Protein backbone atom coordinates (compact mmCIF):
# COMPACT_ATOMS: atom_id res chain seq x y z
CA UNK A 1 0.00 0.00 0.00
CA UNK A 2 1.30 3.38 -0.94
CA UNK A 3 0.45 5.69 1.89
CA UNK A 4 -2.97 6.26 3.41
CA UNK A 5 -6.15 5.69 1.43
CA UNK A 6 -6.84 8.81 -0.63
CA UNK A 7 -10.06 10.72 -0.38
CA UNK A 8 -12.29 9.60 -3.22
CA UNK A 9 -12.17 12.20 -5.96
CA UNK A 10 -15.35 13.89 -7.04
CA UNK A 11 -17.19 12.30 -9.91
CA UNK A 12 -18.21 15.59 -11.46
CA UNK A 13 -17.49 15.43 -15.13
CA UNK A 14 -16.27 11.86 -15.03
CA UNK A 15 -19.36 10.23 -16.45
CA UNK A 16 -19.64 12.87 -19.13
CA UNK A 17 -16.17 12.05 -20.40
CA UNK A 18 -16.87 8.28 -20.31
CA UNK A 19 -13.79 7.37 -22.33
CA UNK A 20 -14.71 5.05 -25.15
CA UNK A 21 -12.20 2.86 -26.96
CA UNK A 22 -11.88 3.30 -30.66
CA UNK A 23 -14.52 1.32 -32.49
CA UNK A 24 -12.89 -0.89 -35.06
CA UNK A 25 -16.17 -2.70 -35.82
CA UNK A 26 -19.81 -1.83 -35.34
CA UNK A 27 -20.61 -2.52 -31.68
CA UNK A 28 -22.51 -5.66 -30.72
CA UNK A 29 -24.07 -3.93 -27.74
CA UNK A 30 -24.44 -0.21 -27.35
CA UNK A 31 -25.98 1.68 -24.44
CA UNK A 32 -26.90 5.33 -24.87
CA UNK A 33 -27.58 7.51 -21.82
CA UNK A 34 -29.04 4.62 -19.84
CA UNK A 35 -30.67 5.42 -16.49
CA UNK A 36 -32.07 2.67 -14.32
CA UNK A 37 -34.35 2.99 -11.31
CA UNK A 38 -35.31 0.59 -8.53
CA UNK A 39 -38.50 2.33 -7.46
CA UNK A 40 -37.33 5.89 -6.86
CA UNK A 41 -33.69 4.97 -6.39
CA UNK A 42 -31.47 5.82 -9.33
CA UNK A 43 -29.18 2.79 -9.60
CA UNK A 44 -27.51 3.52 -12.93
CA UNK A 45 -26.86 7.00 -14.22
CA UNK A 46 -26.18 7.97 -17.82
CA UNK A 47 -24.38 4.83 -18.90
CA UNK A 48 -23.07 4.94 -22.46
CA UNK A 49 -20.88 2.15 -23.73
CA UNK A 50 -20.08 0.30 -26.97
CA UNK A 51 -19.24 -3.37 -26.55
CA UNK A 52 -17.31 -5.06 -29.35
CA UNK A 53 -18.30 -8.41 -30.87
CA UNK A 54 -16.31 -11.57 -30.24
CA UNK A 55 -14.36 -10.07 -27.42
CA UNK A 56 -14.60 -10.40 -23.66
CA UNK A 57 -15.66 -7.27 -21.81
CA UNK A 58 -15.32 -7.23 -18.04
CA UNK A 59 -17.38 -5.05 -15.69
CA UNK A 60 -15.54 -4.30 -12.47
CA UNK A 61 -16.30 -2.15 -9.46
CA UNK A 62 -17.09 -2.36 -5.77
CA UNK A 63 -20.25 -4.08 -4.49
CA UNK A 64 -23.40 -2.11 -5.21
CA UNK A 65 -21.77 -0.08 -7.99
CA UNK A 66 -24.39 -1.17 -10.53
CA UNK A 67 -22.31 -3.56 -12.65
CA UNK A 68 -24.69 -6.50 -12.20
CA UNK A 69 -27.71 -4.24 -12.65
CA UNK A 70 -26.29 -2.98 -15.92
CA UNK A 71 -25.56 -6.53 -17.07
CA UNK A 72 -29.17 -7.46 -16.38
CA UNK A 73 -30.49 -4.54 -18.42
CA UNK A 74 -28.79 -6.09 -21.47
CA UNK A 75 -31.21 -9.05 -21.59
CA UNK A 76 -34.03 -7.27 -19.77
CA UNK A 77 -33.81 -9.58 -16.77
CA UNK A 78 -34.67 -6.62 -14.56
CA UNK A 79 -38.13 -6.64 -16.13
CA UNK A 80 -39.15 -9.44 -13.76
CA UNK A 81 -38.33 -7.29 -10.72
CA UNK A 82 -41.40 -5.19 -9.87
CA UNK A 83 -40.95 -1.43 -9.67
CA UNK A 84 -37.93 -1.11 -11.96
CA UNK A 85 -37.69 1.42 -14.78
CA UNK A 86 -35.29 2.09 -17.63
CA UNK A 87 -34.57 5.32 -19.48
CA UNK A 88 -32.32 5.64 -22.51
CA UNK A 89 -31.50 3.04 -25.12
CA UNK A 90 -29.76 -0.30 -25.32
CA UNK A 91 -29.00 -1.32 -28.89
CA UNK A 92 -28.11 -4.87 -29.77
CA UNK A 93 -26.99 -5.24 -33.39
CA UNK A 94 -28.42 -1.75 -33.86
CA UNK A 95 -31.93 -2.54 -32.56
CA UNK A 96 -33.26 -0.90 -29.41
CA UNK A 97 -34.21 -3.78 -27.11
CA UNK A 98 -36.45 -1.50 -25.06
CA UNK A 99 -38.24 -0.34 -28.19
CA UNK A 100 -41.76 -1.36 -29.07
CA UNK A 101 -42.24 -4.63 -30.91
CA UNK A 102 -39.37 -6.34 -29.10
CA UNK A 103 -40.17 -9.89 -28.02
CA UNK A 104 -38.45 -10.27 -24.65
CA UNK A 105 -38.63 -14.05 -24.85
CA UNK A 106 -36.81 -14.15 -28.20
CA UNK A 107 -34.35 -11.53 -26.93
CA UNK A 108 -33.41 -13.68 -23.94
CA UNK A 109 -32.90 -16.69 -26.16
CA UNK A 110 -30.37 -14.69 -28.19
CA UNK A 111 -28.58 -13.47 -25.07
CA UNK A 112 -27.50 -16.28 -22.78
CA UNK A 113 -26.94 -15.61 -19.10
CA UNK A 114 -24.93 -17.35 -16.39
CA UNK A 115 -25.61 -16.35 -12.81
CA UNK A 116 -23.41 -15.77 -9.80
CA UNK A 117 -24.78 -18.76 -7.94
CA UNK A 118 -25.10 -21.75 -10.22
CA UNK A 119 -28.79 -22.51 -10.60
CA UNK A 120 -29.23 -25.84 -12.36
CA UNK A 121 -32.83 -26.95 -12.55
CA UNK A 122 -33.66 -29.82 -10.18
CA UNK A 123 -33.76 -32.20 -13.11
CA UNK A 124 -31.34 -34.53 -14.85
CA UNK A 125 -28.15 -33.24 -16.51
CA UNK A 126 -29.67 -33.99 -19.92
CA UNK A 127 -32.95 -32.23 -19.19
CA UNK A 128 -31.12 -29.15 -17.92
CA UNK A 129 -29.43 -28.68 -21.28
CA UNK A 130 -32.44 -29.80 -23.30
CA UNK A 131 -34.86 -27.45 -21.48
CA UNK A 132 -33.98 -24.30 -23.44
CA UNK A 133 -34.20 -26.22 -26.72
CA UNK A 134 -37.59 -27.61 -25.79
CA UNK A 135 -39.17 -24.35 -24.64
CA UNK A 136 -37.93 -22.57 -27.75
CA UNK A 137 -39.22 -25.26 -30.09
CA UNK A 138 -35.65 -26.13 -31.13
CA UNK A 139 -35.64 -29.71 -29.90
CA UNK A 140 -36.34 -31.43 -33.22
CA UNK A 141 -36.10 -35.21 -33.28
CA UNK A 142 -34.74 -37.21 -30.37
CA UNK A 143 -31.40 -37.76 -32.11
CA UNK A 144 -31.07 -34.08 -33.04
CA UNK A 145 -31.80 -33.14 -29.44
CA UNK A 146 -29.22 -35.59 -28.13
CA UNK A 147 -26.64 -34.32 -30.60
CA UNK A 148 -27.27 -30.70 -29.59
CA UNK A 149 -27.05 -31.55 -25.88
CA UNK A 150 -23.74 -33.35 -26.44
CA UNK A 151 -22.38 -30.46 -28.50
CA UNK A 152 -23.31 -27.95 -25.79
CA UNK A 153 -21.77 -30.04 -23.04
CA UNK A 154 -18.58 -30.36 -25.13
CA UNK A 155 -18.51 -26.58 -25.68
CA UNK A 156 -18.71 -26.14 -21.92
CA UNK A 157 -15.89 -28.69 -21.41
CA UNK A 158 -18.19 -30.89 -19.37
CA UNK A 159 -19.01 -33.78 -21.72
CA UNK A 160 -16.22 -36.13 -20.63
CA UNK A 161 -17.19 -35.75 -16.99
CA UNK A 162 -20.92 -36.27 -17.40
CA UNK A 163 -21.40 -38.43 -20.48
CA UNK A 164 -22.18 -41.46 -18.29
CA UNK A 165 -24.31 -39.45 -15.86
CA UNK A 166 -26.74 -37.70 -18.20
CA UNK A 167 -29.68 -39.30 -16.39
CA UNK A 168 -28.45 -38.32 -12.91
CA UNK A 169 -29.71 -35.27 -11.07
CA UNK A 170 -27.77 -32.11 -11.88
CA UNK A 171 -27.81 -31.25 -8.18
CA UNK A 172 -25.51 -34.20 -7.46
CA UNK A 173 -22.61 -32.56 -9.33
CA UNK A 174 -19.87 -30.41 -7.82
CA UNK A 175 -20.23 -26.61 -7.74
CA UNK A 176 -17.83 -26.10 -10.64
CA UNK A 177 -19.57 -28.73 -12.73
CA UNK A 178 -22.94 -27.17 -11.96
CA UNK A 179 -21.70 -23.80 -13.17
CA UNK A 180 -20.34 -25.31 -16.39
CA UNK A 181 -23.68 -27.07 -16.81
CA UNK A 182 -25.37 -23.67 -16.57
CA UNK A 183 -23.00 -22.43 -19.28
CA UNK A 184 -23.79 -25.47 -21.45
CA UNK A 185 -27.49 -24.84 -20.87
CA UNK A 186 -27.10 -21.23 -22.02
CA UNK A 187 -25.06 -22.24 -25.09
CA UNK A 188 -27.56 -24.89 -26.18
CA UNK A 189 -30.08 -22.35 -27.48
CA UNK A 190 -27.35 -20.79 -29.70
CA UNK A 191 -27.20 -17.27 -28.32
CA UNK A 192 -24.72 -14.83 -29.82
CA UNK A 193 -24.06 -12.97 -26.59
CA UNK A 194 -23.18 -14.55 -23.25
CA UNK A 195 -23.66 -12.51 -20.08
CA UNK A 196 -21.86 -13.86 -17.01
CA UNK A 197 -22.62 -12.43 -13.58
CA UNK A 198 -19.64 -13.28 -11.35
CA UNK A 199 -19.69 -16.85 -12.69
CA UNK A 200 -16.72 -18.03 -10.62
CA UNK A 201 -17.22 -16.17 -7.36
CA UNK A 202 -18.50 -19.25 -5.53
CA UNK A 203 -15.90 -21.62 -6.96
CA UNK A 204 -12.50 -22.86 -5.84
CA UNK A 205 -9.36 -21.79 -7.79
CA UNK A 206 -9.24 -24.92 -9.98
CA UNK A 207 -12.90 -24.67 -10.97
CA UNK A 208 -12.38 -20.93 -11.53
CA UNK A 209 -9.47 -21.61 -13.85
CA UNK A 210 -11.60 -24.00 -15.90
CA UNK A 211 -14.32 -21.35 -16.26
CA UNK A 212 -11.73 -18.77 -17.34
CA UNK A 213 -10.27 -21.14 -19.93
CA UNK A 214 -13.77 -21.72 -21.15
CA UNK A 215 -14.42 -17.99 -21.49
CA UNK A 216 -11.23 -17.71 -23.53
CA UNK A 217 -12.39 -20.47 -25.90
CA UNK A 218 -15.94 -19.22 -26.18
CA UNK A 219 -15.11 -15.70 -27.28
CA UNK A 220 -14.28 -17.02 -30.76
CA UNK A 221 -18.00 -17.68 -31.19
CA UNK A 222 -19.71 -15.38 -28.71
CA UNK A 223 -19.61 -11.84 -27.47
CA UNK A 224 -19.01 -12.20 -23.76
CA UNK A 225 -19.69 -9.73 -20.99
CA UNK A 226 -18.46 -10.83 -17.58
CA UNK A 227 -19.08 -9.15 -14.24
CA UNK A 228 -16.39 -9.85 -11.71
CA UNK A 229 -15.22 -8.45 -8.41
CA UNK A 230 -11.91 -10.21 -8.93
CA UNK A 231 -9.55 -7.82 -10.68
CA UNK A 232 -6.97 -10.47 -11.51
CA UNK A 233 -9.72 -12.35 -13.24
CA UNK A 234 -10.76 -9.29 -15.23
CA UNK A 235 -7.13 -8.75 -16.22
CA UNK A 236 -6.71 -12.41 -17.24
CA UNK A 237 -9.85 -13.01 -19.29
CA UNK A 238 -11.00 -9.71 -20.75
CA UNK A 239 -10.06 -7.59 -23.75
CA UNK A 240 -11.95 -4.54 -22.55
CA UNK A 241 -12.78 -3.48 -19.02
CA UNK A 242 -15.44 -1.11 -17.75
CA UNK A 243 -15.11 0.32 -14.24
CA UNK A 244 -18.35 1.23 -12.46
CA UNK A 245 -18.61 3.32 -9.35
CA UNK A 246 -21.75 4.51 -7.57
CA UNK A 247 -23.98 3.73 -10.53
CA UNK A 248 -21.80 5.47 -13.08
CA UNK A 249 -19.42 4.22 -15.72
CA UNK A 250 -16.14 5.83 -14.72
CA UNK A 251 -13.85 4.47 -17.38
CA UNK A 252 -13.99 2.00 -20.23
CA UNK A 253 -10.94 1.00 -22.20
CA UNK A 254 -8.65 -1.80 -23.28
CA UNK A 255 -7.96 -4.04 -20.31
CA UNK A 256 -4.19 -3.66 -20.55
CA UNK A 257 -4.53 0.11 -20.48
CA UNK A 258 -7.07 0.05 -17.64
CA UNK A 259 -4.71 -1.97 -15.46
CA UNK A 260 -1.42 -0.30 -16.40
CA UNK A 261 -2.22 3.26 -17.33
CA UNK A 262 -5.81 4.18 -16.50
CA UNK A 263 -7.05 7.62 -17.47
CA UNK A 264 -8.89 8.25 -14.22
CA UNK A 265 -7.41 8.53 -10.76
CA UNK A 266 -10.42 6.65 -9.38
CA UNK A 267 -9.79 3.70 -11.69
CA UNK A 268 -6.16 3.60 -10.69
CA UNK A 269 -7.08 3.62 -7.00
CA UNK A 270 -9.52 0.79 -7.52
CA UNK A 271 -7.36 -1.48 -9.68
CA UNK A 272 -4.40 -1.02 -7.38
CA UNK A 273 -6.60 -2.08 -4.45
CA UNK A 274 -6.65 1.19 -2.57
CA UNK A 275 -10.40 0.95 -2.07
CA UNK A 276 -13.22 -1.36 -3.03
Amino acid at each position, binding site marked *: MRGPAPALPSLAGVAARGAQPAADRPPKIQADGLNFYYGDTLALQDISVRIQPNLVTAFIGPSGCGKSTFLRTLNR*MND*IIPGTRVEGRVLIDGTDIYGSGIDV*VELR*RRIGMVFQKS*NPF*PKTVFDNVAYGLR*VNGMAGSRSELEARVEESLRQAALWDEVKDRLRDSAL*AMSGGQQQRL*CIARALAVRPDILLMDEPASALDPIATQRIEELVYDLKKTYTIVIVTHNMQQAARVSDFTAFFWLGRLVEYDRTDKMFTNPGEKLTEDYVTGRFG
Partner: protein
Amino acid sequence: MSASQRAGGGAIARRRLLDLSFQALALVVLCLALAALGALIADVWSDGGRRLSWDFLTGFPSRRPADAGVWHALTGSIFVILVTGLLAVPIGVAAAIYLEEYGTRSLSARIIEINITNLAAVPSIIYGLLGLGLFVRALGMGRSVLAGASTLALLVLPVIILSTREALRAVPPSIREGSYALGATKWQTVWYQVLPVALPGILTGTILALSRAIGETAPLITIGALTFVAFAPDGLWSPFTVLPIQIFNWVSRPQAEFQVNAAAASLVLLALLLTMNAAAIWLRDRYQKDLG
Protein backbone atom coordinates in the same frame (compact mmCIF):
# COMPACT_ATOMS: atom_id res chain seq x y z
CA MET B 1 -7.96 -13.80 31.46
CA SER B 2 -8.80 -16.85 33.55
CA ALA B 3 -11.67 -14.96 35.18
CA SER B 4 -13.20 -14.17 31.83
CA GLN B 5 -12.72 -17.79 30.77
CA ARG B 6 -14.54 -18.94 33.90
CA ALA B 7 -17.34 -16.47 33.23
CA GLY B 8 -17.53 -17.74 29.64
CA GLY B 9 -17.59 -21.32 30.91
CA GLY B 10 -20.43 -20.50 33.30
CA ALA B 11 -22.42 -18.82 30.54
CA ILE B 12 -21.93 -21.83 28.30
CA ALA B 13 -23.09 -24.19 31.06
CA ARG B 14 -26.17 -22.04 31.56
CA ARG B 15 -26.92 -22.06 27.85
CA ARG B 16 -26.52 -25.83 27.72
CA LEU B 17 -28.91 -26.20 30.65
CA LEU B 18 -31.44 -23.90 28.97
CA ASP B 19 -31.09 -25.90 25.76
CA LEU B 20 -31.66 -29.18 27.62
CA SER B 21 -34.64 -27.91 29.60
CA PHE B 22 -36.30 -26.61 26.46
CA GLN B 23 -35.76 -29.97 24.81
CA ALA B 24 -37.33 -31.72 27.82
CA LEU B 25 -40.28 -29.34 27.81
CA ALA B 26 -40.92 -29.90 24.11
CA LEU B 27 -40.78 -33.66 24.66
CA VAL B 28 -43.31 -33.48 27.50
CA VAL B 29 -45.71 -31.39 25.41
CA LEU B 30 -45.35 -33.81 22.51
CA CYS B 31 -46.07 -36.77 24.79
CA LEU B 32 -49.18 -35.02 26.16
CA ALA B 33 -50.52 -34.44 22.66
CA LEU B 34 -49.79 -38.01 21.61
CA ALA B 35 -51.30 -39.38 24.86
CA ALA B 36 -54.53 -37.48 24.23
CA LEU B 37 -54.73 -38.88 20.72
CA GLY B 38 -53.82 -42.36 21.97
CA ALA B 39 -56.47 -42.26 24.71
CA LEU B 40 -59.09 -41.19 22.19
CA ILE B 41 -58.24 -43.99 19.78
CA ALA B 42 -58.05 -46.56 22.61
CA ASP B 43 -61.45 -45.46 23.92
CA VAL B 44 -63.10 -45.65 20.51
CA TRP B 45 -61.37 -48.98 19.89
CA SER B 46 -62.60 -50.47 23.18
CA ASP B 47 -66.15 -49.32 22.35
CA GLY B 48 -66.30 -50.26 18.71
CA GLY B 49 -63.36 -52.52 17.92
CA ARG B 50 -65.32 -55.74 18.40
CA ARG B 51 -67.97 -54.53 15.97
CA LEU B 52 -65.48 -54.13 13.09
CA SER B 53 -65.84 -56.88 10.52
CA TRP B 54 -66.10 -57.35 6.79
CA ASP B 55 -69.89 -57.49 7.16
CA PHE B 56 -69.88 -54.16 8.95
CA LEU B 57 -67.82 -52.55 6.18
CA THR B 58 -69.97 -53.94 3.37
CA GLY B 59 -73.35 -53.77 5.14
CA PHE B 60 -76.14 -51.26 4.63
CA PRO B 61 -78.16 -49.42 7.29
CA SER B 62 -80.68 -51.46 9.15
CA ARG B 63 -83.16 -51.09 11.97
CA ARG B 64 -81.34 -53.96 13.71
CA PRO B 65 -77.97 -52.66 14.98
CA ALA B 66 -76.26 -56.02 14.52
CA ASP B 67 -77.10 -56.05 10.79
CA ALA B 68 -76.23 -52.42 10.10
CA GLY B 69 -73.11 -51.52 8.14
CA VAL B 70 -71.34 -48.50 6.68
CA TRP B 71 -70.83 -49.39 2.99
CA HIS B 72 -73.20 -46.65 1.80
CA ALA B 73 -71.50 -44.02 3.99
CA LEU B 74 -67.95 -45.19 3.25
CA THR B 75 -68.47 -45.12 -0.52
CA GLY B 76 -70.37 -41.85 -0.11
CA SER B 77 -67.44 -40.27 1.75
CA ILE B 78 -64.88 -41.49 -0.79
CA PHE B 79 -67.00 -40.46 -3.78
CA VAL B 80 -67.78 -37.02 -2.38
CA ILE B 81 -64.16 -36.34 -1.48
CA LEU B 82 -62.94 -37.44 -4.91
CA VAL B 83 -65.37 -35.07 -6.63
CA THR B 84 -64.45 -32.34 -4.12
CA GLY B 85 -60.80 -32.80 -5.03
CA LEU B 86 -61.52 -32.77 -8.77
CA LEU B 87 -63.43 -29.50 -8.36
CA ALA B 88 -61.25 -27.72 -5.81
CA VAL B 89 -57.68 -28.67 -6.74
CA PRO B 90 -57.54 -27.34 -10.32
CA ILE B 91 -59.37 -24.14 -9.38
CA GLY B 92 -57.37 -23.64 -6.18
CA VAL B 93 -53.97 -24.28 -7.78
CA ALA B 94 -54.82 -22.08 -10.76
CA ALA B 95 -55.97 -19.26 -8.48
CA ALA B 96 -52.79 -19.54 -6.43
CA ILE B 97 -50.63 -19.49 -9.57
CA TYR B 98 -52.41 -16.38 -10.76
CA LEU B 99 -52.05 -14.58 -7.43
CA GLU B 100 -48.43 -15.59 -6.90
CA GLU B 101 -46.95 -15.54 -10.40
CA TYR B 102 -49.12 -13.25 -12.50
CA GLY B 103 -50.99 -10.97 -10.13
CA THR B 104 -49.54 -7.56 -9.46
CA ARG B 105 -49.22 -6.00 -6.04
CA SER B 106 -52.23 -3.81 -6.72
CA LEU B 107 -54.85 -2.81 -4.19
CA SER B 108 -57.43 -5.18 -5.63
CA ALA B 109 -54.97 -8.07 -5.43
CA ARG B 110 -54.36 -7.31 -1.76
CA ILE B 111 -58.09 -7.15 -1.06
CA ILE B 112 -58.54 -10.54 -2.73
CA GLU B 113 -55.66 -11.95 -0.68
CA ILE B 114 -57.13 -10.74 2.61
CA ASN B 115 -60.52 -12.12 1.68
CA ILE B 116 -59.10 -15.55 0.90
CA THR B 117 -57.40 -15.64 4.28
CA ASN B 118 -60.67 -14.65 5.91
CA LEU B 119 -62.63 -17.26 3.98
CA ALA B 120 -60.32 -19.96 5.35
CA ALA B 121 -61.56 -19.03 8.84
CA VAL B 122 -65.30 -18.93 8.06
CA PRO B 123 -67.26 -21.60 10.03
CA SER B 124 -68.14 -24.54 7.84
CA ILE B 125 -71.88 -24.27 8.51
CA ILE B 126 -71.89 -20.96 6.67
CA TYR B 127 -70.61 -22.83 3.61
CA GLY B 128 -73.47 -25.28 4.20
CA LEU B 129 -76.00 -22.45 4.03
CA LEU B 130 -74.34 -21.12 0.88
CA GLY B 131 -74.39 -24.60 -0.66
CA LEU B 132 -78.06 -24.99 0.22
CA GLY B 133 -79.00 -21.68 -1.36
CA LEU B 134 -76.68 -21.87 -4.36
CA PHE B 135 -76.17 -25.48 -5.38
CA VAL B 136 -79.21 -27.29 -3.98
CA ARG B 137 -81.83 -24.67 -4.77
CA ALA B 138 -80.66 -22.00 -7.23
CA LEU B 139 -78.72 -24.40 -9.46
CA GLY B 140 -81.21 -27.20 -8.86
CA MET B 141 -78.67 -29.85 -7.98
CA GLY B 142 -80.86 -31.25 -5.21
CA ARG B 143 -79.38 -33.27 -2.38
CA SER B 144 -76.87 -34.88 -4.72
CA VAL B 145 -73.23 -35.91 -4.52
CA LEU B 146 -72.45 -32.99 -6.83
CA ALA B 147 -74.13 -30.47 -4.50
CA GLY B 148 -72.28 -31.90 -1.48
CA ALA B 149 -68.94 -31.98 -3.26
CA SER B 150 -69.41 -28.44 -4.59
CA THR B 151 -70.12 -27.20 -1.08
CA LEU B 152 -67.06 -28.94 0.35
CA ALA B 153 -64.98 -27.65 -2.59
CA LEU B 154 -65.89 -24.09 -1.61
CA LEU B 155 -64.92 -24.95 1.95
CA VAL B 156 -61.43 -26.26 1.12
CA LEU B 157 -60.67 -23.84 -1.72
CA PRO B 158 -59.16 -21.08 0.47
CA VAL B 159 -56.96 -23.60 2.28
CA ILE B 160 -55.73 -25.04 -1.02
CA ILE B 161 -55.04 -21.57 -2.41
CA LEU B 162 -53.11 -20.54 0.70
CA SER B 163 -51.01 -23.70 0.91
CA THR B 164 -50.29 -23.65 -2.83
CA ARG B 165 -49.13 -20.04 -2.60
CA GLU B 166 -46.81 -20.98 0.26
CA ALA B 167 -45.39 -23.82 -1.83
CA LEU B 168 -44.90 -21.54 -4.86
CA ARG B 169 -43.24 -18.90 -2.73
CA ALA B 170 -40.76 -21.47 -1.44
CA VAL B 171 -39.43 -22.13 -4.96
CA PRO B 172 -36.05 -20.37 -5.25
CA PRO B 173 -36.18 -17.27 -7.50
CA SER B 174 -32.93 -18.45 -9.11
CA ILE B 175 -34.85 -21.27 -10.81
CA ARG B 176 -37.30 -18.80 -12.35
CA GLU B 177 -34.44 -16.53 -13.46
CA GLY B 178 -32.58 -19.46 -15.02
CA SER B 179 -35.67 -20.38 -16.99
CA TYR B 180 -36.45 -16.84 -18.15
CA ALA B 181 -32.82 -16.31 -19.17
CA LEU B 182 -33.12 -19.23 -21.59
CA GLY B 183 -36.04 -17.63 -23.37
CA ALA B 184 -38.84 -19.49 -21.61
CA THR B 185 -42.19 -17.75 -21.37
CA LYS B 186 -43.87 -17.14 -18.04
CA TRP B 187 -46.20 -20.06 -18.56
CA GLN B 188 -43.35 -22.42 -19.53
CA THR B 189 -41.42 -21.32 -16.47
CA VAL B 190 -44.38 -21.95 -14.19
CA TRP B 191 -45.36 -25.24 -15.79
CA TYR B 192 -41.95 -26.87 -16.30
CA GLN B 193 -39.90 -25.41 -13.44
CA VAL B 194 -41.96 -23.85 -10.66
CA LEU B 195 -44.85 -26.33 -10.38
CA PRO B 196 -42.69 -29.50 -10.26
CA VAL B 197 -40.61 -28.02 -7.45
CA ALA B 198 -43.72 -26.84 -5.59
CA LEU B 199 -45.62 -30.08 -6.16
CA PRO B 200 -44.76 -31.83 -2.87
CA GLY B 201 -45.93 -28.79 -0.91
CA ILE B 202 -49.07 -28.43 -3.00
CA LEU B 203 -49.91 -32.12 -2.57
CA THR B 204 -49.38 -32.02 1.17
CA GLY B 205 -51.55 -28.93 1.61
CA THR B 206 -54.24 -30.29 -0.67
CA ILE B 207 -54.51 -33.67 1.02
CA LEU B 208 -54.60 -32.07 4.45
CA ALA B 209 -57.40 -29.78 3.25
CA LEU B 210 -59.32 -32.75 1.84
CA SER B 211 -58.77 -34.61 5.12
CA ARG B 212 -60.49 -31.74 6.84
CA ALA B 213 -63.36 -31.89 4.37
CA ILE B 214 -63.87 -35.63 4.84
CA GLY B 215 -64.58 -35.11 8.53
CA GLU B 216 -67.05 -32.28 7.94
CA THR B 217 -70.64 -32.89 9.04
CA ALA B 218 -72.27 -29.50 9.47
CA PRO B 219 -72.29 -28.22 5.88
CA LEU B 220 -73.55 -31.55 4.54
CA ILE B 221 -76.33 -31.74 7.11
CA THR B 222 -77.29 -28.21 6.10
CA ILE B 223 -77.66 -29.15 2.45
CA GLY B 224 -79.83 -32.08 3.44
CA ALA B 225 -77.59 -35.12 3.43
CA LEU B 226 -79.08 -36.30 6.75
CA THR B 227 -81.74 -38.40 5.12
CA PHE B 228 -82.10 -42.13 5.23
CA VAL B 229 -79.95 -43.40 2.37
CA ALA B 230 -79.72 -47.16 2.16
CA PHE B 231 -77.57 -47.55 -0.96
CA ALA B 232 -74.15 -46.59 -2.26
CA PRO B 233 -74.12 -43.48 -4.51
CA ASP B 234 -74.20 -44.44 -8.19
CA GLY B 235 -73.60 -41.11 -9.87
CA LEU B 236 -73.10 -37.38 -9.46
CA TRP B 237 -76.84 -36.82 -9.09
CA SER B 238 -77.37 -39.62 -6.60
CA PRO B 239 -78.45 -38.85 -3.03
CA PHE B 240 -75.72 -39.78 -0.58
CA THR B 241 -74.60 -39.89 2.99
CA VAL B 242 -71.12 -39.77 4.47
CA LEU B 243 -69.41 -41.38 7.47
CA PRO B 244 -69.61 -38.41 9.88
CA ILE B 245 -73.35 -38.12 9.22
CA GLN B 246 -73.87 -41.85 9.72
CA ILE B 247 -71.95 -41.60 12.99
CA PHE B 248 -74.05 -38.59 14.04
CA ASN B 249 -77.19 -40.53 13.14
CA TRP B 250 -76.21 -43.57 15.20
CA VAL B 251 -75.01 -41.57 18.19
CA SER B 252 -78.39 -39.82 18.40
CA ARG B 253 -80.25 -43.15 18.71
CA PRO B 254 -81.25 -44.36 22.17
CA GLN B 255 -80.16 -48.02 21.72
CA ALA B 256 -76.71 -48.82 23.16
CA GLU B 257 -75.93 -51.16 20.25
CA PHE B 258 -76.09 -48.23 17.82
CA GLN B 259 -73.51 -46.41 20.00
CA VAL B 260 -71.19 -49.34 19.39
CA ASN B 261 -71.85 -49.01 15.67
CA ALA B 262 -71.00 -45.30 15.88
CA ALA B 263 -67.67 -46.09 17.56
CA ALA B 264 -66.88 -48.68 14.90
CA ALA B 265 -67.77 -46.25 12.13
CA SER B 266 -65.49 -43.68 13.80
CA LEU B 267 -62.66 -46.21 13.52
CA VAL B 268 -63.41 -46.60 9.80
CA LEU B 269 -63.32 -42.81 9.35
CA LEU B 270 -60.06 -42.59 11.29
CA ALA B 271 -58.54 -45.30 9.12
CA LEU B 272 -59.64 -43.42 5.99
CA LEU B 273 -58.08 -40.20 7.31
CA LEU B 274 -54.82 -41.86 8.28
CA THR B 275 -54.64 -43.47 4.84
CA MET B 276 -55.02 -40.09 3.17
CA ASN B 277 -52.38 -38.51 5.38
CA ALA B 278 -50.01 -41.40 4.76
CA ALA B 279 -50.58 -40.90 1.03
CA ALA B 280 -49.66 -37.24 1.45
CA ILE B 281 -46.40 -38.13 3.16
CA TRP B 282 -45.60 -40.84 0.64
CA LEU B 283 -46.21 -38.53 -2.33
CA ARG B 284 -44.14 -35.77 -0.79
CA ASP B 285 -41.17 -38.04 -0.12
CA ARG B 286 -41.41 -39.58 -3.57
CA TYR B 287 -41.25 -36.25 -5.36
CA GLN B 288 -38.58 -34.86 -3.10
CA LYS B 289 -36.42 -37.87 -3.89
CA ASP B 290 -36.91 -37.19 -7.59
CA LEU B 291 -35.58 -33.70 -7.10
CA GLY B 292 -32.41 -35.21 -5.62
